[in-house]
């Protein structure tokens, strides 16, 4: 981590994990419940959190074909964007690297580690 390009403090292990091709999540130290996005405390108790790698697997919980985009993705519209229900519990907002019409709710997806954008935020793909 370059000192001139500091990672956000609470979420640093998540971003470092993406560079190591691992999906890191926070888990409650007492009851093991996972949460995303990273927070300074557990949502589920006062025992604190620990970081552990997650499976990178989930299912499509909600889905849209987005015709609008933040500036860095203006060239990518339209794209499929979903709330992915992660196997460990929390939901993650992410793009899905597949034609929108080929996707259905409940479908199994996995982090697409070969997608170049996954280094800065996970892009998912249909599970094999």
């Amino acid at each position, binding site marked *: 981590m370059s000192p001139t390009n500091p990672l956000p403090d609470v979420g640093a292990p998540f971003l470092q994990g993406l560079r190591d091709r691992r999906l890191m999540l926070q888990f409650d130290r007492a009851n093991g419940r996972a949460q995303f996005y990273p927070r300074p405390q557990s949502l589920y108790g006062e025992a604190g959190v620990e970081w552990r790698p997650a499976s990178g697997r989930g299912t499509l919980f909600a889905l849209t074909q987005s*015709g609008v985009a933040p500036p860095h993705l203006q060239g990518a519209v339209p794209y499929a964007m979903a709330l992915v229900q992660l196997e460990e519990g929390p939901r*993650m907002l992410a793009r899905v690297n597949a034609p929108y019409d080929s996707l259905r709710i409940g479908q199994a997806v996995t982090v697409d580690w070969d997608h170049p954008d996954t280094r800065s935020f996970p892009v998912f793909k249909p599970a094999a």
Partner: protein
Amino acid sequence: MKTLSDRGIAIVGFAETKLERRSGRTALSLAGEAVDQLLARTGVERSRIDGFATTLAMSEGGNPFYSNLLAEGLGLSVTWCQATEIGGASSGGNIARAAAAIQAGMCDIVLCLASDAVSTVDRSVQSGHRTEYADPAGYAGPLSAFALLSNLYDQRYGLPHDALAKLAVTQRKGALLNENACEVLRKPLTERDYLESKLVSSPLRMLDCVMRCDGASAVLVMSTQRAKEMGFRKLVHPISYAERINFDPTESCGDMLKSGFTDVGPRAFANAGWKPSDVKMLHWYDDFLIALILQFEQTGFCGPGEGGAFVMAHDLTYSGELPLNTGGGQISAGQPGLAGGGVNLVECLRQMFGEAGRRQVRDASNAMLTGIGVLQYARNWGTSSVMLLERSE
């Protein structure tokens, strides 16, 4: 709030600028126009105002002295001052905060202001999960969140396309008669126009969404005793208020359709001893039409999944049995950024003061005002508020 039901707090006047797309003005300039109009309409001298509450303005970005800047620019020297940053719930929230400040003896006469020139310049930055985890994922602002919420509603109940179209047309009828509505929106609209409008983020259509504009509104709040001493005859009393910020934080894996309205609706009604059927008109926060369907279901007008049927079964126009957003709401009048809640609030007061002209409703003796603020990460909206208001007879 426990201190409103005795009608001890009064709203004595309101003012609003015309809503305009890319006015080229600043929030202060728009605020100045609204305040001049308010003082002229109420006859209250500027120097009598000793309390000031404002919403934030996206056009002013992160100015850390925003409320002070406005007070100085507007020539106000006050003993109580605050900017309220609960998004679209801030306009109604400021009435409640003003009431609390007056009852606590911190001030006597409060100016509640909402002004934003966001369509001229947007200097806002939403630090935190929005920039760290939502934008990198492809999030394009509130319409991404409402598209996913709409998809979820569609999965569970089926989206009520006919009812959404009816809501769009109903509110547009009010905007046609509202001279303060954005000109570009003052064109007749049919259900077919709605249904054929472009999908911006499926299943969300262009005409499901608000259009940003510039504008300001201002409201004067004081104790009912002071209002009577000053000779005001027409008064509107906020009689009940409830708000919830960051609803249901541990249910990130729970029911995403459920919003804070399931909390604030029942609380606000219980405080006033009302039930939904006692409400004469609805001035509900409408950044997206689906938010209105969820409010019907979650404040007790109908059950989950029944919002579409409820809309189809009732005439919600200004001449109907349960008027809704009679000036067009934000959907058909425009959303002046963080001042958007003022559009609903001012139309509510305009009706209650009997000044709505050709769109005046038959019975404006009471009203229900709502606010919605901020979108949470992978959840519903974060802030929900309900205010119930009654007119003095």
